[in-house]
């Protein structure tokens, strides 16, 4: 296993960054020199300090330590993105499985519903939800889940429909195994591969989307240390105090890159049909 990873630099980089992110997420309170700055603390005496000394990444407009906020940001940005993907999978996979395994009218009906949802781009939806309910991280998350799950449903449905035609699935039906059990025990594990791969590739994308929403003011609100929001807050200062936007921006890129690399590595590991090699 180790030899496998070492031979693939992309996977190695992705895993390394992931480990770093996990450490940051778990140990943020201990690693951050100014944990309160990720919350409500401000220090107006220290605003816009250059990176160095006490503040390795400088301070922002409210005098908060950027490094501490970036650290805590892992929990927020990556954490929410993981939750969003998980939620989209939890909705999309059962619907796709049902449509693909049952087929016929159920399939048509479900896929038509999926098509309706697919018509909404996440940003427009987020705008609509934010306009109606008020901007917040939770609402942005909901918007992304609502626009993301149909992709998984459709992908799952395709795979499930293909697997349903396999001889061993028919064999299970003919043995007398109840239909739901056949779907869960035989169709689901064999069909889910490509969906998981897509989800891991999407993680990078969701991080970016979430950051974009927050950047637009539709997502996380101050003082939440969400990277996209932090970039927005430093946007007007890029020529004079670039570090305010630079470091959270870099964090977004690094995290997105890591997940994309991991996703590619996962895709390579699972063979094209979505079944893991022995």
């Amino acid at each position: 296993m180790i030899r496998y990873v070492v031979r693939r630099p992309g996977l190695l980089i992705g895993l390394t960054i992931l480990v770093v992110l996990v450490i940051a997420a778990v140990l943020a309170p201990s690693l951050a020199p100014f944990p309160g700055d990720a919350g409500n603390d401000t220090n107006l005496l220290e605003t816009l300090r250059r990176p160095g000394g006490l503040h390795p990444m400088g301070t922002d407009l409210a005098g908060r330590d950027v490094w501490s906020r970036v650290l805590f940001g892992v929990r927020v940005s990556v954490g929410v993105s993981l939750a969003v993907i998980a939620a989209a999978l939890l909705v999309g996979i059962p619907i796709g499985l049902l449509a693909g395994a049952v087929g016929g009218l159920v399939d048509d009906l479900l896929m038509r519903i999926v098509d309706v949802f697919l018509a909404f781009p996440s940003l427009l939806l987020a705008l609509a939800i934010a306009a109606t309910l008020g901007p917040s991280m939770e609402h942005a998350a909901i918007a992304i889940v609502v626009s993301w799950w149909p992709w998984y449903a459709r992908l799952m449905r395709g795979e499930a429909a293909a697997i349903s035609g396999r001889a061993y699935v028919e064999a299970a039906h003919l043995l007398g195994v109840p239909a739901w059990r056949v779907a869960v025990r035989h169709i689901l594990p064999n069909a889910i591969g490509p969906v998981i791969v897509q989800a891991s590739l999407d993680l990078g994308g969701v991080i970016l989307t979430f950051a974009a929403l927050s950047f637009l003011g539709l997502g996380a609100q101050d003082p939440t240390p969400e990277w996209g929001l932090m970039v927005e807050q430093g946007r007007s200062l890029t020529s004079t105090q670039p570090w305010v936007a630079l470091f959270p921006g870099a964090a977004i890129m690094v995290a997105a890159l890591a997940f994309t690399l991991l996703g590619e590595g996962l895709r390579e590991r699972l063979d094209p049909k979505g079944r893991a090699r022995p």
Partner: protein
Amino acid sequence: MNNAIRLVARDLEVRYRGIELVARPALALDRLELVPGRSVALVGESGSGKTTALRALLGVIRPSAGTVEFDGVPLGRLRGTAARDFRRSVQPIQQDVDGALDPRQCLGDAIAEGHRAGGGSSRDAEATVARLLDEVSLPVSIATRHPHEVSGGQRQRAVIARALAVGPRLLLLDEPTSGLDATVQVRILELIERLRIERGLGLLLVSHNLGVVARLCEETVVLYRGEVVERGATRALMDEPRHPYTAALRRSVPEIGVPFRAPFNPSADSALLDGPGGCRFAARCPHATSPVCGQTQLLAPVTDDPDRLVRCIRSPELGILNPLA
């Protein structure tokens, strides 16, 4: 469980959707009866309809005409416990080549699944799996292996064990030995034979190989392009075929020590090529003559043997065909 079960197909016809315009169905089977203790062979090549027949008997395909009845009830009307009994009494053995085993499921779990589906409890699953593996001559250690980790012959045995776990009285086998090495084929056939005797099973064996069929089945039905062309006691059919196709099949089976024979020497009468009503074998038949072979052929009993049927208008005059000629 009712031991005296019967699965009967009568005047079975299967047409494929969208091809209604074609005059002839993919399968037209006059009668087929399966009971425990008897074994019947369905012999034919690609396009003969033999797999269609097997799937219709399993209820996977709905007939366009005719019936398939289990203990007197048409398959389409089986409900509740009766439907469950049907599934448990009649089990297919697929060609492994198509992947009849879930690649992610270890063999022991596959067999245990059959056991549970047949009404067995999880408590004695492990013991049952061990017993069945022994019955099909597989080592118990194979239970933790996955399909890709074992040989083709072992996979086939595992598929048989899984089907047996349900407790069937009838086994419907679709080319159970194709794709396997010759020595492995022999052992699988020996296994099937032993199981049939020990468990008193009824068999339907679908194959294109007369050698396989001759070993296991008392009765043989020969199909050609969807029609029954000859049927009767296997031994009589093989030694004294009356339909030219049966004779050709017999000639085509390679045998050591028997000189090689070309299978067909078609007659030159091209006017017989696939007319709407005539004999479907005419284009390849060495005895085809017009106009008689262009007329509708009926399945008729051979004189002095009502159980032996042939669909060949020239049969009475051709008599017994020598396959070795």
